[in-house]
């Protein structure tokens, strides 16, 4: 059982009436709301938090990629991962991930991930994503080719890492006469590949077929995760093998404090900041980004997404977050990780406005008083 600490690096300084005055925290959110001086302190503080996770003994730390938004301030997660290679000694550094269709040429990902693997001494987890819907608006990349480009780019990158170069590559979207990345990764045959997903059958079957690891992105009702990992195990069986728990990751925010009541009091306002402001318009879906069938399924699943939740009761019942005393968190975490059958938990608590000291306190309690009992 492995535990990873993830960080979105959210922007905590949105105006008080943001949710009423703005229709989106994404794409067209005016960047005059960003303050680079405050941004400097914030990056330091967020990097400190991730370095602290390494000290506390988390198995890994996670960064990810988003563009033109207040939800996550890492348009280049690889830059943050590079900084973290110099601030951490032991833990894995999971970049989950690079949105492959946004990179042209995608060989850039093969190169930068290899750099990170070499810099970190073989501690990289290579996450590859299609990228969220809003990114296709921000980068003006054609969403109707998102899936095709993702698969071609992924195959190209893996081949670039595993086949001696130079070689020629020719596929529908990419042609390269000389594929020959320097450096090559330390981990052999290549760094572990994680693919985050939100439960679409297309992605589940693809990841199972390739024997990569499937990371269920957080913010969904527990029923969605139950179904998702069930589908994943089935897909692995269809592909002729039994799913390894390490191939399944569950994304779940966790906050620990001295008592249940204190935990809720300390955490709840910051979760609402996140839900009401930062998730606003995250589900912006460009046409062709998914099949019409999947688009319809997403519409039907409305109500099972964190952004649709209206009160604390709904958060608790849907297990959108685990919040409580060490004992409560221990019990819930143990119950659900076993029920879901996952071997990887991706947790975080920094929703943007949570004070730095509280984030550190919760992380320390989680690492010292909870995780040793749920390994």
């Amino acid at each position, binding site marked *: 059982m492995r535990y990873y600490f993830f960080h979105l690096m959210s922007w905590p300084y949105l105006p008080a009436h943001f949710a009423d005055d703005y229709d989106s925290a994404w794409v*067209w959110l005016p960047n005059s709301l960003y303050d680079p001086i405050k941004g400097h302190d914030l990056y330091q503080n967020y990097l400190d938090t991730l370095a602290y996770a390494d000290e506390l003994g988390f198995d890994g730390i996670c960064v990810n990629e988003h563009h033109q938004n207040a939800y996550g301030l890492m348009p280049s997660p690889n830059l943050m991962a590079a900084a973290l290679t110099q601030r951490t000694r032991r833990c894995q550094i999971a970049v989950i991930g690079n949105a492959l269709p946004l990179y042209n040429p995608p060989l850039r990902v093969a190169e930068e991930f290899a750099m990170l693997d070499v810099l970190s001494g073989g501690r990289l987890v290579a996450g590859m994503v299609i990228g969220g819907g809003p990114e*296709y*608006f921000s980068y*003006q*990349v*054609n*969403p*109707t*080719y998102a899936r095709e480009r993702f698969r071609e780019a992924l195959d190209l990158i893996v081949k670039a890492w595993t086949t001696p170069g130079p070689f020629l590559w020719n596929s529908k979207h990419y042609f390269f006469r000389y594929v020959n990345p320097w450096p090559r990764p330390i981990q052999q045959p290549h760094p572990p590949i994680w693919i985050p997903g939100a439960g679409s059958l297309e992605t589940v079957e693809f990841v199972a077929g390739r024997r990569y690891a499937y990371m269920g992105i957080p913010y969904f009702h527990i029923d969605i995760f139950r179904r998702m990992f069930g589908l994943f195990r089935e897909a692995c069986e269809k592909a002729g093998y039994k799913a390894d728990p390490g191939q399944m990751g569950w994304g779940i925010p966790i906050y620990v404090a001295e008592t249940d009541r204190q935990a809720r009091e300390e955490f709840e306002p910051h979760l609402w900041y996140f839900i009401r402001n930062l998730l606003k318009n995250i589900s912006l*879906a*460009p*046409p*062709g980004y998914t099949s*019409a*069938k999947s*688009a*319809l399924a997403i*519409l039907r699943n409305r109500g099972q997404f964190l952004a649709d939740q209206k009160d604390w009761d709904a958060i608790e019942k849907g297990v959108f977050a685990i919040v409580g005393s060490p004992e409560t968190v221990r019990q819930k975490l143990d119950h659900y990780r076993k029920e879901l059958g996952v071997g990887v938990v991706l947790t975080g608590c920094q929703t943007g406005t949570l004070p730095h000291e509280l984030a550190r306190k919760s992380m320390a309690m989680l690492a010292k008083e909870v995780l040793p009992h749920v390994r």
Partner: protein
Amino acid sequence: MFDALKKLRYGARVFLSRKGGEPEVIDVGGRSVSILSGGEGPPFVYLHSTLGESMRWLPFHAAWSKHFTVYAPLHPGFGQSGGFDEISNIEDMAFHYVELFDALGLGEVILGGVSLGGWIAAEFAVRWPERVKKLWLSGTPGLWVEEQPLPDLFRDMANIPRLRALLFHDPDGYMAKMVLGDHPDEERRVAGYQAMTVLARLVWERPYDPKLARRLHRIQCPTLLLWGGNDRLVPPAYGEAYRQHLPQSEMKIIPNCGHLAMFEKEAEFVEAVTAFCQ
């Protein structure tokens, strides 16, 4: 109440005009093409907008069929029309149509369309001008007018009231509410999503063809530019831009009309096209 009656009346007109618009699926180089046709007279090809309005034989198709043999095909990716995998840009659409016309045995045609359909017609005409007897374009993108950038239709695609405001002069009128209903059923939603997927494939990276302007001089046939005076999606300035490159063209504005003249001002629209094409 009054609107409900108007809707019923339109429904009755659709019902009464249905004959003549028999749907057919034909094979064009391995791609299936769904096509409605009807009427008698010189061949007249109507290319539909992203709404996919040629899925049904509507009163405006029927009105033209009194004067022409009307062909109303569905573009690749719409309804039963396949071949979307082979489409990556607007030129592919033009090539699709030359193959369709060959398959139908159509030499020279009267060609026109609304919005996306008009753009495909223009791209066809610059490549095969000898096959276009007359050309008409309505609410047609394809060019770029620096002073009036086209709005982002995709941003508003899930917001029906905003979409209606973009597409109709009178977004509260019965026609706006009939074409873009408040509660579309799943079938309509899927069709809408597919239609927007085709459009996204063509225009997402760049919502115009940078080569079209310098090719337009190849079109020598009579050309009508028919615009809703209040078209907010593709403003009349785009018609003006076409006119500048097509000195033989005439521009006609339909007052109090948005982007979809065939719905919002059907009578004026049909009359203007018919008078020009006869």
